[in-house]
Every structure is written in C-alpha cells, then in structure tokens.
C-alpha cells in the first residue's frame, strides 16, 4: 500500500465559515499535519470550481486521500465522493470534516476559539483519513415483484400503482374480503357519500388485474432476505404459500378503540361512532330524539397522548346525518378541541353548525357525566365557554374514539424487522424527509398503520409508497453503502456476540472455508442484510469484527488526535 498522501480542502463557504474561522491559518495548520501532502482553501468547495480544484489536486499532487472541511456530510458527502471517483480515487478514500454547522455557525462570537476548534477538527479528520481504505459497494439484483400487506384503500392503491407500472404484486389481506376499514363506514366526509361506490371500483380493479396475485385471507408468517431479494412465506387459509419479492409495502391500517368509558358496553344506547355507522348502514338505528356525541374519548390522555385527527370530522359528519334523518332531533357534540383542518372541513363544520348541531366545549379536568340506570337518560356537562353546568337529555350517546394500532403490529414488526414507534404505530425512517419508507431498505409504509389517516391521505400515501418502491424495481440493481461490517476469521473466536446484537440477523456463525481455517466456527456477515450500524463492531471483544469506514483504528486515531497524540 502506498504511503498516505492526504489532500485537505478548507472551505470558506463564502463568509459562512471564512467570516468566523481564520481559514488561511487552518490551511497552514493542515499542512503541518502528518501525511498531508497538500492543503488549500476554496471559496465554495461545492462549486464547480471547488470540485474541479479537488480533482485537479488529486492528479497534480498524487493524492490518495481527500479531506474536505466544510459543511455537513449529511448533505454534501455524495458530491465530494463523486468528485474523488471522477478523479480516479476510490470514493471511500474521502473524509468529511464539519466546520460550519459544528463550528463557525455556533461560535460566531469567538473567532479565535472557533479557529482553534476548526484546526482540531481538521486534525481529527486527517487522522482518520490516514486509515481509510478503498471500498467496493455491494450490488445485488432486484427481483421484479412486490408484496403489499393490507387490502385496504392504502394497500390497494399501492398495489394498483405498482401493477399498472408492470410489476407483479402479491397483495396479502388478513380478512376474507378487500376493502379494509372502509367497508364498515356508512358515509364518507366531506362529500357525505356511500363509500361502497369507491370501494367497489377499486376492488374490481384490483381483482381484475392480471399482475396482482391476491392472498386472502392470509397473514405473513416469515420474511427473510433484503432489498431486492425477500423470501416470504404466508399462511393463506391454513396452507403455506411462499414467494419472492424485491420490495415490501406495509399498509395494514388500524383499528378503532372500544372504550371503557361513559359506560360503553354496559348501557345499550351508548355507541361508538363506528357502531353508529354500522347501524345506519344496516338500517337498525331506530328512533332517536336527543343525541349527544362526545369527542376525544380515550384520546389525548396520558396513556394515549396523540390526536387521532379523524374523529372530529367523523363526529361532524354523523351529527349532520342525524339531523338529516330527523331534523327535529337535538344533536350536541361535546368536544375538547375541534380538528377541522384544510379547506373543505372548516366549511363543512360551519354548515353543520348552521343546520342546528350544537357544539359544547368540555375540559379534561371536568369530564361529561352519564346519567341513567338502564339507559342513558341525560348527560351532564360543564360548558367551559358559558361557565355553567348543563344537563342534556339524551337517548343516544355516541363516542368518538381514536384509531389505535392493530394488535398484530408487533408480530409484523418482528417478522419484517421494522420499528414501531411510541404509540404502537409503525415508525417511518424520518418524520419529515422519509415519510413513506422504513429505515430497513426495500420496505415502505403507508396509510393508517403509520398514523391515523383519512381515505384521501391513505390513497396518497399508498401511491407515494408505491412510487418509492418502484425505484429499486425499475433500476433492477441495488447498491449498499460500503460501511458494512467485516469479520477477520483469523481473530474471530466464534463467540457469537456480534450475531446476538445484530438487529438485522445479518451475522451467522459458520464453518470457515478459508484456507488454513477450514472448519473453524467464525462469524460471517451477509453484506446484503447489513445496514452498517456497527453494533457488532462495538460488541466484538477483540476487534475481529470491524465496520468499514468506522473501524476501531479510525475512531481511535481520531480520539488520539484530539488528545494530542500522533
């Protein structure tokens, strides 16, 4: 291996860095560091000019490592890696030092110390760079099929989208019919229409699609493999069916909470909004004169702190319907806060109010009380706005309850190795930047299994997940960033600690086939499964397992550099 020749590029970032940090001083300092063959400043390293100066210097000074000290690797690392690659240098021989977000921008009042800190950060980056190795990215083919779990409106939308783009889709639904929660609804807001129209058209399209293979009723029993190459096994009506898929979309929906509040289940005239819809749908509601609806039942409380968002609109929709059925009826909606976001909903709310539905605000410290022995006879509520207690006659009490995670989320999370967040809903990779995919490559998410979503959102998320999932399917090839784990079989003692801590089951104990070590039980990393977290490397007692790009040598060198050691 050639001796390291490190090139260091310090970015002014206009005045963002240069206005605070004494860049020329940092450049001079960089030149004094071990193995640094070249150091220079750029006005904007990410500009055309900056990039070409890196490429030029790599050739001119025969550099075999590049360090850029500028902004954050989270946004600019690919750019500079590509610059290295263009100049014929393996892109993994590049190291990023952040002297903007982590230095100049946060120490604007202290130029001298900011400069000292920038020097030290550069020193650490150079120390790591000295130990960088060239890496090859792992590539694998993508099997051109998808599995969509959940035959609700989100899942069906995703399946149709993928199928229409020409990819085979396995749609797995646990119930014996497609449609999901929508099947139970009476009307849908804000258009106040029977949902069956909508459902039927989608279901028909799905069932008639030559590219969609339905598994129903079926549940996923096992899934192994990685992006492009999942092996899936489902239990389809008692028999096991296996197939391959390149990507997976999770759209399993959610369920409505059945509360243990307001004597639900005890008194016959206490219903949830979903019960009400079912009765309306079946024509079994019967007579009513005084309807009280309570919102936020079992939601926004310490054990379930989130707002389910949909229930306000559901209550408004059904209150309007009550008025429509019996214009003489008195309809009260007791709410804490009303969630009528967007353009149409607020308008709809106003219309309902005009139609005579009365809205009364209650507070969680003063919950409405149900009066009655056999049936609800009245509801007592403290009206916060009027500052008085009201007793509302009531022959039908309807509770708006939140959507809660499905009971089988945990099981599915375990099978797919995708995370569940605080409330029990699935957790996307990034709340803002990666809303419809999991951290686990090749698995995507949409609809209410991620967070309570209405029909429109569910469809949109289904499409969104499909459009993300189609990228690897279309490309036919996936690459894995070369920060995955490696094992030195000579040192590995086969204790299996790494395999125990791996969240992705990417490490197995196997008999070595390497010459001289035949038969020795050692750890082996399946690079396609490895996500590059490095847990194994930290857990390995003797450094046999290393994470590329974050080796013990590299991390220790940075720590030592910071400590003034060379």
């Amino acid at each position, binding site marked *: 291996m050639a001796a390291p020749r490190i090139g260091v590029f310090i970015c002014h970032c206009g005045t963002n860095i240069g206005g605070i940090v004494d860049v020329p001083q940092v450049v001079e300092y960089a030149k004094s560091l071990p193995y640094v063959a070249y150091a220079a400043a750029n006005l904007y390293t990410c500009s055309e000019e900056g990039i070409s100066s890196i490429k030029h210097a790599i050739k001119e000074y025969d550099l075999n490592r590049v360090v850029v000290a500028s902004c954050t690797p989270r946004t600019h690392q690919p750019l500079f890696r590509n610059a290295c690659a263009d100049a014929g240098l393996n892109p993994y021989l590049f190291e990023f030092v952040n002297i903007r977000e982590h230095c100049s921008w946060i120490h604007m009042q202290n130029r001298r110390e900011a400069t000292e800190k920038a020097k030290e950060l550069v020193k650490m980056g150079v120390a790591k760079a000295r130990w960088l190795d060239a890496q090859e990215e792992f590539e694998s083919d993508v099997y051109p099929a998808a599995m969509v779990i959940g035959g609700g409106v989100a899942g069906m939308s995703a399946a149709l989208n993928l199928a229409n783009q020409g990819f085979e889709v396995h749609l797995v639904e646990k119930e014996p019919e497609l449609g999901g929660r929508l099947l139970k609804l009476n009307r849908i807001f804000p258009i106040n229409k029977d949902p069956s129209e909508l459902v039927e058209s989608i279901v028909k399209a799905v069932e008639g699609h030559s590219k969609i293979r339905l598994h129903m009723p079926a549940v996923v029993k096992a899934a192994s493999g990685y992006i492009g190459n999942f092996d899936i096994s489902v239990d389809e009506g008692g028999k096991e069916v296996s197939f391959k898929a390149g990507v997976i979309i999770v759209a399993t929906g959610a369920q409505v909470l059945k509360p243990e509040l307001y004597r639900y289940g005890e008194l016959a005239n206490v219903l949830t909004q979903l019960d009400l819809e079912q009765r309306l749908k079946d024509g079994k509601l019967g007579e009513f004169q005084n309807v009280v609806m309570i919102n936020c039942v079992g939601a926004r409380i310490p054990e379930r702190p989130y707002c389910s968002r949909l229930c306000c609109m559901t209550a408004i929709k059904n209150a309007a319907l009550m008025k429509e059925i019996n214009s003489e009826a008195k309809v009260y909606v007791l709410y804490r806060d009303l969630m009528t976001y967007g353009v149409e909903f607020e308008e709809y709310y106003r219309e309902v109010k005009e139609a005579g539905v009365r809205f009364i605000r209650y507070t969680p410290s003063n919950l409405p009380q149900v009066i009655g022995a056999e049936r609800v006879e009245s509801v007592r509520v403290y009206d916060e706005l009027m500052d008085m207690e009201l007793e509302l006659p009531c022959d039908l009490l309807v509770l708006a309850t939140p959507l809660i995670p499905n009971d089988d989320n945990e099981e599915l999370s375990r099978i797919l190795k995708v995370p569940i967040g605080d409330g029990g809903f699935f957790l996307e990779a990034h709340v803002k930047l990666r809303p419809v995919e999991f951290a686990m490559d090749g698995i995507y998410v949409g609809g209410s299994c991620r967070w309570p979503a209405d029909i429109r959102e569910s469809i949109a998320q289904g499409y969104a997940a499909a459009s993300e999932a189609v990228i690897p399917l279309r490309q036919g090839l996936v690459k894995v960033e070369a920060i995955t784990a490696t094992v030195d079989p000579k040192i590995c003692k086969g204790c299996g600690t790494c395999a125990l801590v791996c969240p992705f089951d990417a490490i197995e104990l196997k008999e070595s086939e390497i010459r001289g070590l035949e038969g020795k039980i050692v750890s082996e990393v399946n690079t396609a499964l490895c996500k590059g*977290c490095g847990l194994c490397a930290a857990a390995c007692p003797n450094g046999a397992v290393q994470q590329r790009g974050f080796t013990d040598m590299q991390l220790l060198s940075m720590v030592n550099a910071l400590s003034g050691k060379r």
Partner: protein
Amino acid sequence: MQDTKEVQTEFKPKILAFCCNWCAYAGADLAGVSRFQMPTDVRVIRVMCSGRVPPELIIRALANGLDGVMILGCHPGECHYSEGNYLTRRRAHVLKRLLSYIGIEPERFQLRWVSAAEGAKFSAVVKETTDKITALGPNRWVDKR
C-alpha cells in the same frame, strides 16, 4: 499562530461527543443551521449509531486526558437501526458506574438523547456539559503515552 500560544489562565475543558448520524449529528447540524451559539469545547465524532461506540474508546479517551466524553444518540424507540440505542443504554449504565467507582466523576461520561429535530437540546447539552466539567476541573487520569 501567535495567539494560540497565549497563556490560558482559566481551565478550558476538552470534551468529545460521539454523535449518531441519524439523530444527534443531525440535531447538531440543526443547531448550526439555527445559529444557536454555544461553548467551543466540544468536538464531535460522527458514527452511524450510538451503539458503535465501544467502552474501550470511552475509557481510552478519558485516560488520554480528555475531560469528558459524551455519546449522543436517538431517543429510545427512535433508533434508525431499531435497537442500537437500547444496547448503548445498557452499556452506558454499567460503564458510568464503573468509571464512578474508580473516581471518574459521572459527569465526565454522559449518554444523552438528542433527536434530529432537537437543535436547541443539542446546544443545551453542550452548554450544560461544558459548565459541569469546567466546574469539576481537569481530569485526574492524564496520560500522554
């Protein structure tokens, strides 16, 4: 280079922070973007997951004479790799107690949770830790070998 040789009368600690790529490092970036001003004593090393940081590295850093070491990771339940921070948490509990047992003050090794959205928290943690360690004074276990 002149001013670097200036005699420093007050104690300036040297603190190392391992930040996971997905939460804490992003949180630190956000602190930068938000221009939250903070003490200059903390240096960040980026790792993909807080679970990548082995105890050897913490112990080595403290024995090298660094005045404090932090691991900053995703809040429990939010690990990009599902469970890395839970393992970090277990290790940190044990290590912190062991360090304290031999007289390294607990403040010198900290595990804190900083999400990608918590730029303000990152800055608060930096300030708080810097203050605490400044108050403690230099690390006793110094070594330059």
